[in-house]
């Protein structure tokens, strides 16, 4: 409960003193910075912590396997039966009603629709997937933990996006990335701790998907239009066109002198120190951020591996951000809802799959060859899946499906080559070892070292958490 009162560390030296005594880099002091609550009820960060260095790295409740998170958000809802939960039996009923009840989704659906992509067994684990993600499955299935029994609450985009991102479909709550950044801080003070990449504009519900709500604004996701290549359009205020860099340095040296003089008469005020430091950080951020987002610095071979299209570029940037210590990167498939293919699914999913397959496969290979996959948790999935039946009268698209869908995890302590849970024989509803979105959140927080019931924030008289009053850690997902 960060809005709680300031807690002395040992009764003698307060954290504020520590910060005030530090001369360089307030964010670097007391990195272990988590003050365990005596009663062990919740993670406490003092007001001084969260206000003066909200992004300073902090330890979780227990050592986590994952140190950082990448959420590949396939917004719109990719079809499970066309990707990682193939159901060859659909072909038998193609164009005919399923023998099982046709569950009600947002639109009217009818006859079964077979997948346009054949199914294969991949890797040592022999997990079945369609060829839509051929490269990813061939190279990485044994590192992937495929959850085929995900389920959410409703078949509409808006509430499902909110549920997946903020753990609650209607009420305003902080996003998943905000919670993680609040819990862990960030390893690099020169970059935002939580970065959101989405090309060309926003997904539906816009910035609400990465809001910090009642958590301090510093934990909100920093949106990057990843279709841009000009750094000025990537991060707000990152460049000053009217002020050459060396001139800005001179100006900041002047500012520092002015501020030091001001501070001389005002000792022991950590606010003043923190603000002086923030200009130094900002100055470094200008070059560091530019560098982090400049994927052109990647060798041709690497660029080739990720693919030349926007997904590849996004994931190259993602890797560069992760290397630099960014805590949480959420990568969106695109503005609006690209995977929402009510019609022409073969063409639309085919196109998206092709781009994302190359990019994801390259990304996972790259993370692994750099030794980053062990402590980087990659999450793939949409806000829900799609129906195994088509929207009539055409027979070429699928409706939203929250009864059952697939997400997968890789790295960061997730169990590779493992399939968790199952949908019914046609892939409509999760029936075995069901995993609700709240359970996924609880489990991912566990991998990061948090007890999801104790990562809380006191607001409006309540200790809020990402999983609210729900969530169950699914231990079977862990290596």
């Amino acid at each position: 409960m960060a809005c709680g009162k300031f807690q002395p560390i040992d009764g003698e030296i307060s954290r504020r003193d520590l910060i005030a005594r530090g001369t360089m880099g307030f964010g670097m002091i007391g990195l272990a910075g988590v003050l365990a609550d005596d009663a062990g009820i919740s993670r406490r960060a003092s007001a001084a912590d969260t206000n003066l260095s909200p992004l300073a790295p902090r330890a979780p409740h227990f050592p986590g396997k994952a140190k950082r998170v990448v959420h590949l958000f396939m917004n719109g809802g990719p079809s499970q039966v066309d990707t990682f939960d193939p159901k060859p039996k659909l072909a038998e009923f193609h164009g005919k009603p399923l023998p099982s009840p046709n569950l009600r989704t947002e639109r009217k659906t009818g006859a079964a629709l077979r997948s346009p992509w054949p199914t294969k067994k991949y890797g040592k684990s022999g997990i079945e997937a369609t060829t839509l993600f051929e490269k990813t499955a061939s190279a990485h299935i044994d590192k992937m933990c495929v959850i085929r029994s995900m389920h959410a609450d409703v078949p509409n985009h808006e509430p499902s996006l909110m549920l997946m991102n903020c753990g609650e479909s209607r009420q305003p709550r902080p996003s998943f990335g905000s919670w993680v950044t609040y819990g862990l801080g960030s390893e690099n003070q020169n970059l935002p701790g939580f970065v959101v990449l989405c090309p060309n504009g926003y997904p539906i519900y816009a910035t609400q998907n990465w809001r910090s709500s009642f958590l301090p604004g510093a934990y909100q996701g920093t949106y990057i239009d990843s279709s841009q290549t000009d750094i000025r359009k990537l991060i707000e205020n990152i460049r000053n066109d009217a002020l050459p860099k060396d001139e800005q340095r001179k100006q900041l040296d002047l500012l520092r002198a002015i501020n030091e003089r001001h501070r001389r008469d005002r000792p022991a005020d950590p606010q003043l120190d923190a603000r002086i430091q923030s200009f130094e950080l900002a100055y470094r951020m200008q070059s560091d951020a530019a560098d982090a987002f400049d994927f052109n610095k990647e060798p041709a071979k690497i660029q080739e591996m990720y693919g030349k299209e926007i997904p590849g570029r996004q994931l190259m940037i993602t890797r560069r951000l992760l290397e630099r210590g960014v805590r949480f990167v959420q990568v969106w498939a695109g503005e609006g809802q690209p995977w929402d293919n009510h019609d022409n699914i073969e063409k639309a999913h085919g196109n998206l799959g092709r781009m994302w397959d190359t990019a994801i496969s390259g990304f996972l290979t790259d993370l692994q060859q750099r030794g980053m996959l062990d402590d980087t948790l990659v999450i793939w999935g949409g806000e829900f899946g799609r129906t195994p039946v088509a929207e009539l009268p055409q027979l070429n698209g699928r409706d939203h499906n929250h009864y059952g869908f697939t997400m997968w995890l890789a790295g960061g302590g997730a169990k590779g080559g493992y399939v968790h849970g199952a949908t019914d024989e046609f892939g409509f509803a999760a029936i075995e070892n069901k995993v609700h979105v709240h359970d996924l959140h609880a489990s991912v927080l566990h991998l990061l070292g948090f007890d999801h019931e104790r990562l809380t924030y006191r607001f409006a008289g309540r200790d809020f958490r990402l999983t609210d009053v729900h969530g169950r850690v699914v231990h079977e997902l862990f290596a």
Partner: protein
Amino acid sequence: MHTLLASLALLLPASADAGDQFERSIRPILAEHCIACHGSKSQKGGLRLDSREAIVRGGDSGPAIEAGDLASSLILEAVGYGSEPKMPPKGKLRPEQIDALKQWVAAGAPWPKTVVLESGPAGPDPRTHWAFQPVSAPSTPEVARADWPRTSIDRFVLRELERKGLAPSLDADRPTWLRRVTFDLIGLPPTLDEIAAFEADRSDEAHSRVVERLLASPHYGERWGRHWLDVARYADTKGYVFMQDPNYHWAWTYRDYVIRSLNADKPYDRFIQEQIAADQLEPAAERDAIAALGFITVGSRFINNQQDIIDDRIDVVSRGILGLTVACARCHDHKFDPIPAEDYYSLYGVFASSNEPEVPPPLGDPAKHAEYANFERELKVREAALAAYRESKYAELQETNRRRSGEYLVAASSGRDRPNTREFMLIADGSDLNPRMINAWRRFLDSTRGKHDPIFAPFHALVKLPAEGFAKKADALLADYRAKPAADAPINPVVLETLSSARISSLTELARTYSNLLHSAHQQGHELARRKNGGKEAVPLPEPAWEELRLVFERAGCPTKLGLDQLNDLQLLPDRPSQAKLRELREKVEKWRDSGPGAPPRAMALVDAPSPGKQRVFLRGNPGTPGAEVPRRFLRLTSTTPPPAFTRGSGRGELARAVTDPGNPLTARVFVNRVWMHHLGTPLVSTPSDFGLRSDPPTNPALLDHLASRFMSEGWSIKQLHRAIVLSRTYRQASLDRPDARAIDPENTLYWRFNRRRLDFESTRDALLAVSGRLDPTVGGRSVDDMMNPGPKKRRTLYGKVDRLNLPGVFRTFDFPDPAVSNAKRDQTTVAPQALALMNHPLVMDCAKAIADATSPSAGEPKSRVAAIYRAALHRDPAGDEVETALAYLAAAGPEAPARLAHALLMSNEFVMID
């Protein structure tokens, strides 16, 4: 609640035996097997078993015991494992334990006085909670340093300091105090002239003259209005919307109402009353005060989910005004505070009976506008088109309801597992049944099942038959009806005859038969009325059996009787094409109403529903599981009897009175604490919107009560409150650190110095504009969305459009609170993106350039130019060493250097910090 428990205890058998029995056998069973899920920590099924009162009250399924009645005590049923739920779930109790429970219930469930079983540490008693005690008027304390206090506030502060062995700080110097009080009261820096005038005024009244000048400034209302708008979760948009215009075109009329009221020093009780019930006050509010209701209506719209909208309104009233987290009692009784779920729904009923008028009332005198007549004419045309479309769709809906009643009956009685359509939106094709109507028909069918219904009894019996051999079994059943007519359960003869002759072989046919009958009876009635009186009023059919059939569509609960006003857009128009058409027509109306030539501003008003509905508790917060009916009334808190039910309309007027009743211990305390926080930097109660049992007590309780009692006795005058605080010596203290004092009170909770503070987002931007001559001082008006673009004259920051869905990044970067909910206190973070904005934002650069241009080289030699830039940016002359540093910079940095020097000063700590 406690009183109830106590009185129950008195009624209980108090024999030693009974107590023994409880302690020996009952308490261990409850403690070991029940309390973990049905105690203070968790209340599965809404049930607690930790006190007798809770057990008797029961949970979602009703009382857990009926004392002395073994057969109807649910707890015995559950432990018996005969039917669901089987409790405890982990395994059946031993037979002797079950017997003990039975004996205990049979004996009237004796429970020793005062025992509450604990699943955690006991909470404090609400009756003794400080915030629920009446506001006292503590006498001004004696202090040792009698020469220090200037005002009574100072005595309250000094006494606490002296108790801890602390001395107050020296007075701040005059320029520091002037800058402090100016930013504090109007959110802008003092001008050079104002500084000089104050410096020159050495009279005793110098300070109070400044305060009077500031309180009389129209900018005072802007500054303090913005503080209130944080509480009011003000925004210019609705948040995510599905079919509507996302903008609140008239939110600014509420914002301007707040500014106007504060500038006029409207008494706080009146200010609150208007914001809850401006439409029903006595004496009536001035006409434009109707805009005050924006306080209730300007919240998020949650894709029009009614329960969430009302929850937001309860929350803003309860946390914002009363400092109570009433919304915590939406799904269960409040876990800490004496707020049962019943009380939440009592307030819910008030807001559920208050509607926003379809056309918001105009403000000012619109007729004065030359184009008004034309505006009105065109508006009527567009509104008529919208209304006609909705009516035509409504007629279609009801026609379908009657014509396809059979299909609806089939859909309504098919028991398929379907998602709760209350929770989610179904999109239908044009020819589909309306999903919301299916629900309405299901509810209607349910209502015909409870007691014998001459028309629907055979339906319910036939529906139960299996598909296989349906026809045969149906025949047998109908033959039975014919053979053995029951006198007390007659079957409508037409229904029986038609069903019998129709040889029904499936559910679909059954429903179609009913549909034909009902529709035919309706048509006959229609035809008869047309012949008899031109269709003006209904005429009974001559044959009683047919008349009974005709009346089905006329029954109150029948979907055919749903009025247009009872249907929302999605219910009326479940398919995309008609939704699009409606949106188009509505946009035409709204666009004209909001921005057509001559369009008057409007108030985001509320009006009472014509007949306030009855309100029920929603068990677990779910409207699908209604519980007991509750009257509309105020919170009971610690009073022993519930307050009287509201009797006038929605009860908003009565609610407004109850909230501002001088006997209410919370309202004045909560507000003075907020005002104190904004003046001194920290509140007396650390959670300004939560004065409940979990809040920390005030750091200086006597001071809080002194402020609150005085506030009320001085007519709830906010300006008087400001005067009292800013003219105190406490407020005048220097902000310098004193290690000795810090060792005793590191957080300065006792105010041994002034808290140095950083300007908030609005003041930072406003100060940049003010010192560079870029500020447009216009007060009020529509919100602007080019706030961050440079320009010769810019409006104050509070006039920037607040887009709830997409708040510009710079707002959150500078800790502007998320307008999704009422905000008590802003964070004050220090992060690099703030520095980036100041270093690189064109607006900041532009302000710096304006300063440099205004101090052009004609100002003379470099030295005097440096002085001029310092005076403009920081309102003081530079010291010798500062001039030297600046000159060295000017020499090294080329022709743009003066602007860059000014820019550095605008970024400096001195510029944004208030000592």
